[in-house]
């Protein structure tokens, strides 16, 4: 957004000569597609004034608590989270923030489903949301397997047959604690975080979808 940006002042139809500098091309593309007044807006359309639009941001808040409590748990280890009072508190904080994360993610899903949030070029935003939902279920499942207690052993042994029956037991072994723990604390959270950032940027780029029938007339 600097005053010296070469992309500013050009007419929309004009094609600027292609720069050889990839940093310049990247900066121009960001200026074109992700202007700051869209990324950090201070005003919203009138129809955003509903509690339904709050579910998404509450989901993100819950995810922040999930990640923060998970970082503490992974740093301190299973003996701490089972045997100490503070450890059990953080264990509970992690568990209950996950419950809120899923509850508000599903409420956000209902809201977006009934307002057909995939309209007007927002299909990719919707599909990334679906993928986040799927990965979140897998992350929660590997979390149950990472508790290091009898419940996690019960889940692992009962799930093993299902995974074998589905044909994925050889490379996704629920009895392999190291694999489940590694997936739970590293790969899957990183995937969710990257996709959530992409999801938010896409929402901010295009804005919130308009209501289906705002004036009682034709669909927009």
């Amino acid at each position, binding site marked *: 957004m600097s005053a010296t940006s070469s992309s500013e002042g050009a007419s929309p139809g004009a094609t600027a000569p292609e720069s050889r500098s990839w940093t310049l091309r990247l900066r121009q593309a960001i200026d074109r597609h992700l202007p700051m*007044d*869209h990324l950090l*807006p*201070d*005003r*919203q*359309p*009138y129809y*955003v*004034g*509903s*509690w*339904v639009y*709050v*579910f998404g941001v509450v989901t993100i808040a819950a995810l922040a608590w999930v990640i923060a409590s998970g970082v503490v748990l992974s740093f301190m280890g299973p003996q701490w989270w089972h045997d100490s009072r503070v450890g059990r508190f953080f264990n509970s904080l992690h568990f209950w923030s996950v419950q809120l994360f899923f*509850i508000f993610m*599903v*409420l956000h899903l*209902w*809201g977006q489903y009934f307002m057909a949030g995939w309209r007007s070029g927002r299909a990719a935003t919707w599909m990334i949301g679906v993928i986040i939902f799927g990965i979140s279920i897998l992350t929660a499942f590997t979390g149950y397997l990472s508790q290091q207690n009898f419940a996690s052993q019960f889940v692992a042994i009962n799930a093993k047959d299902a995974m074998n029956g589905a044909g994925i037991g050889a490379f996704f072994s629920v009895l392999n604690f190291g694999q489940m723990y590694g997936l739970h604390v590293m790969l899957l959270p990183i995937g969710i975080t990257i996709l959530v950032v992409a999801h938010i940027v896409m929402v*901010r*780029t*295009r*804005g*919130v979808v*308009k209501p289906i029938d705002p004036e009682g007339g034709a669909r927009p």
Partner: protein
Amino acid sequence: MDTPAAYFHWGFILISVPNLIVIGGMIVLFAIALIAPFPHGGEEGDDVGNK
């Protein structure tokens, strides 16, 4: 806590009471979000951020 949950059984529907309470609570919360008035601070917004 170590006892099995009670189950609600109605025709082909079979669901544990804790799950039923959570889903019922979510439906109630969704309905409240649709009905409850949203506080408006300051002026009405325009179409910023809405391509």
